[in-house]
Structures are given as structure tokens and as C-alpha cells.
């Protein structure tokens, strides 16, 4: 029952650090707490022999949280050490809603007569995943790729204050002019 113990440990870490996200008074710390929560869940995934996905989760989330921290400092000018904050509204409603959600979902989890397990995991889960991705669920991944493109295009279009015409002139023939040095074409 080692796995049980480990799971519960991870569970406690995940939930507590998740809750901690909204208790700390700086965004950077919140980010770290969130990352911890994700890592815990990723580890729990490993317990369920989701080796690849668990790893991906951990890696992605750590990276993402790093990005988030950088983002906050760079773009929003928030020094995590200097910016204590408590920007909360409707706290009691939110608590009540959260509790309700937990009770309802938890009650559902316990009351539902879950069906029996269908089949057993493939011996090599990663290989099975690969086969599925290249086989029956290929279309899913094919559809995700344009999503990535769309994200890049849309994200840059929204976030970047200056586009290529600002930097290279309307006919794209000028030298790049950026207020701060760096960037493509410079």
C-alpha cells in the first residue's frame, strides 16, 4: 500500500498548494504554488502508469509557470517581492460556491455506481499511446496542430503592441526600429 500512501501524500500536496495559490500575497509565489500542485498531480499520474503523460504534465507545467513568472515581471511590472496584494471580490460567495461544487461533485463521485474496468492497460502504455495517435485518433492530433498555429497568430496579434509594419515600415523595407534593442531583424 505504498502507492496509497504516496498518492495521499501527493493529493494533500496538490490540494494544499492549490489552495495556497490564493492565499499568498504575491503573484510570483502563487505561481510557484500552482506549479507545485501540478507537479504533484503529474507525479500521481506516474502512479497510474501514465509515464509519458505524467512527465509531460510536469515538464509543461514547470515551464509554463516559469513563463508566467517572467511574464508578470516583464510585462506587468510586478516585482514579486514588493507587491503584496489581496485582490479578492465576493469572497464568501466564492467560498460557498466552491464548497457546493465540492459537495456536489464529491457526492456524485461516491453515489455513482461506477462500471467495472474494461480490459487491462497495454503492457507499454507509451507505445499504445503512440499507436493511437498515429492510428485511430490521428485526426485529433491533426486538429490540434492548427490550434497551435492559431494560438501563435492570435496570441502575437493580441499581445504584441508593434507589428511588422511598425518595425519595418509600411513596405517592409526599412531597418527595424524598436524602442528597445533586440528582436528579429536586428
Amino acid at each position, binding site marked *: 500500500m505504498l*502507492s*496509497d500512501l504516496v*498518492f*495521499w501524500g501527493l*493529493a494533500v500536496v*496538490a*490540494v494544499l498548494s*492549490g*489552495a495556497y*495559490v*490564493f492565499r499568498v500575497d504575491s*503573484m510570483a509565489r502563487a505561481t510557484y504554488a*500552482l506549479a507545485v*500542485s501540478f507537479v504533484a*498531480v503529474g507525479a*500521481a*499520474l506516474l502512479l*497510474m*502508469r*501514465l509515464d509519458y*503523460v*505524467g512527465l*509531460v504534465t510536469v515538464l*509543461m507545467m514547470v515551464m*509554463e509557470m516559469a*513563463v*508566467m513568472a517572467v*511574464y*508578470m515581471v516583464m510585462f*506587468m511590472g510586478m516585482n514579486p517581492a514588493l507587491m503584496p496584494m489581496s*485582490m*479578492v471580490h*465576493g469572497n464568501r*460567495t*466564492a*467560498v460557498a*460556491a*466552491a464548497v457546493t*461544487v*465540492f459537495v456536489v*461533485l*464529491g457526492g456524485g*463521485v*461516491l453515489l455513482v455506481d461506477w*462500471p467495472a*474496468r*474494461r480490459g*487491462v*492497460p497495454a503492457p507499454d*502504455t507509451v507505445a499504445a*499511446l503512440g499507436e*493511437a495517435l498515429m492510428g485511430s*485518433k490521428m485526426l*485529433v*492530433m491533426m486538429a490540434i496542430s492548427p*490550434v*497551435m498555429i492559431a494560438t501563435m497568430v492570435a*496570441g*502575437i496579434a*493580441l499581445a504584441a503592441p508593434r507589428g511588422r509594419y511598425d518595425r519595418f515600415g509600411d513596405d517592409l523595407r526599412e531597418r527595424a526600429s524598436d524602442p528597445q534593442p533586440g528582436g528579429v531583424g536586428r
Partner: protein
Amino acid sequence: MSLEAVLLVAAALFAVGVYGALSQQVVVMVMMGLELMVNAVVLAAAAMWWFLAPDPTGQVLLLVVIAAMTVEMAMGFAVATLLHRSRGSDMTDMAGDLAG
């Protein structure tokens, strides 16, 4: 470790996420609440895979969820930046011109 146990943990994570999404004023913090909810979904999906249907589909589902989380977060940052730049604030409360 049982299905119910894992799902309960997921429910707890989801509830925390809901709290965050509802209570936070700053867009990025709301996003963190959403991330926690996705986190819960990831955990629940894993539990479904392991305890109910150890089928490759479940793993694909997990990948899609993670991918979705990633792209949503990326868009979130972009939108937050846009909001901050155009309105000088990143609080959802301050962006309430469009109503009624």
C-alpha cells in the same frame, strides 16, 4: 487508492479552482483558478483511464487536455497583456463597460 479516492481529490482541486476563478480580481489569478480546474480534470481523466478504461484513448484525452490548457493559457497571457495595455488595468472588475 481507488477510483473514488482519486476523483474526490480531483473534486477538491476543482473546487479550489472554482473558488479562485470566482474570487480573484486579477485576470492572471483567475487564470490560475482555471488552471487548477484543468489540473483536476487531468487527475480525473487519469483516474478514469486507470480504473475504468485503460484504453489509449484516455491517454490521448489527457494529451489533448494538456494541450488545451497550454493554448488557453497562452491566449490568456495575450488577452491579459492586451487588456493591460489598452485599459491600464488587469482587473476584471475594471473592465465592466459592456453591460446590460
